[in-house]
């Protein structure tokens, strides 16, 4: 379960998000809101990248009090992922694997399913937006995160990539019941795997579950 208590985020004097109290049970959520409403900010706050006021707890672990344990529960993929130009996909996978220690064979399985094997040895400078996106999705699924957050996951993905992503989501939801998802997307989430997805509206810095 994800809990917010008096969480808020401001940029300078402008308050972008304000969540007095909110509990989100396990499930799949679709963040909706116009551009600039704070969807990416919320995901970055949850990922521990942007500091915020108040408390965010996941499975009872506070982001502030247990920064490492909390982060172990999180998988996160950026909307427009950026990596150092000189790193290869293999470098990134090795780096993540060293830290997260995924189950044996999981990384190879993800590589095969997302179809990224052919450019793993090429440098990030030569990747297209879609390739970077696939790598970031792959990295988000490494390990056994309890909550996977995907910012605009369908943008720049090709059809096989979308199918592979939907399969992965479906698999994580069915085989590991504790995996929750928060997606932010302006694209329609019409695939079968997204049926029953709960909508979270963000407007004027306020969040409401629908």
């Amino acid at each position, binding site marked *: 379960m994800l809990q917010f208590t008096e969480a808020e985020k401001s940029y300078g004097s402008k308050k972008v998000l304000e969540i007095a109290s909110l509990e989100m049970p396990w499930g799949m959520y679709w963040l909706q809101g116009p551009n600039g409403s704070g969807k990416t900010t919320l995901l970055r706050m949850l990922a521990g990248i942007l500091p915020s006021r108040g408390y965010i707890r996941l499975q009872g672990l506070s982001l502030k009090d247990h920064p490492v344990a909390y982060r172990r529960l999180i998988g996160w993929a950026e909307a427009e992922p950026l990596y*150092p130009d000189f790193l290869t996909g293999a470098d990134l996978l090795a780096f993540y694997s060293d830290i*997260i220690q995924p189950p044996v064979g999981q990384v190879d399985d993800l590589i095969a399913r997302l179809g990224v094997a052919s450019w793993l040895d090429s440098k990030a400078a030569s990747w297209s937006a879609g390739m970077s996106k696939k790598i970031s999705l792959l990295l988000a699924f490494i390990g056994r995160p309890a909550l996977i957050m995907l910012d605009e996951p369908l943008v720049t993905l090709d059809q096989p990539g979308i199918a592979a992503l939907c399969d992965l989501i479906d698999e994580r939801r069915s085989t590991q019941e504790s995996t929750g998802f928060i997606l932010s997307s302006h694209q329609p989430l019409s695939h079968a795997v997204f049926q029953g997805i709960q909508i979270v509206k963000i407007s004027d810095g306020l969040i409401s579950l629908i």
Partner: protein
Amino acid sequence: MWLALNKTLIRSFYLQHAGFFLFLFIVFFGIVAPSQQLAYHYALIRGMLEAPVFLILVAFAWLLYAVKVSQFVFRVIDSPEGLFLCHLRRFEPGQCYLVLLRVQHVLFLPVSGYALAVVGVALYRGAWVVAVIVVSYLGLICGVAAMLYYRRLGYPGVFRERARSVSRRRPHVRYWGILVRFLIQDNRWFLVGIKLFSCGLLYLLLRQQTPEDYDLRAVYFTYCVALFGHGILLFRCRRLESGRMMWYRALPVALWKRLGQYVLFWLLLLAPEMLILGWMTPNPIRFIDALELGITGNSLLILVSCCQMVIPLRVSDFLKLWLVLFGIWYGCVLGGSVIAMSGFFVGVAVALFFGGYYRSTTCCSG
């Protein structure tokens, strides 16, 4: 069968490596007059027999050659043109192995020919043990190589895939390594310039120190300017982190481990200067002074780096920060309290890091 192997493996190997063999031939036989060849090589082999280290080096070179040969054979077996070689596995395993052993022997001829001469001289001089060792060593190399070829023929291409898969996970990529690669790949000339300036300056200034005229204050002041150049490198690293490495903050890495990665990076960054200092002790610079200079330099960089991590700094802010630190540095050098200053710098840096790393928004300023 032999004909096919001869054509695909042996002949193509020697043709592809003709230049390499020509080079070796010139090195071994071209530098001595023909009339002196025998005496020269006899002396060389005697050297091998009398100095075990020399023999070990030669044995290592033979091993490298064996690796080169086996890599070539693996490449051929894995290539689409060499796939037909898998049919060799249809023969009896022993028969197949012997054929591959013969291939290896022919490919290894340049080494085994010379080794034969070594064995001959060893026997002539009564060095039986060396002769046996050399023969066994060569036999082992060829035997193992043939066995590897035999295994490879059973799974052409699979080993390469597996090796790729393993190499994907094996090389440990560390955070400090990423930062070092950034400096080497994207800031190569700037880094070289700063290093030349910094190390050259240290060397020249320290060389002028004499027991009669021993004063390191000038060294401290100029070294601070060199450190400023390093500060610019750190500034660029920070920009990389805030722009393209935001994801690192979302990873489950303990703060002390993060700090450890940075400390390693800072130490590596100043390693050439530390080597110069070490080289210049105890004369012209005393050991304790070298240690102080090294510690103060590192502590200054650590503080600058931590400040950048916690406080969003523009270029103008960065310059102001350096001015302030330079003032403190200047005062402490004149006051003779550089170690206290270093302790203060490190203390502030660590406090800033632990207190501000997760609270700062500098990661998203890019």
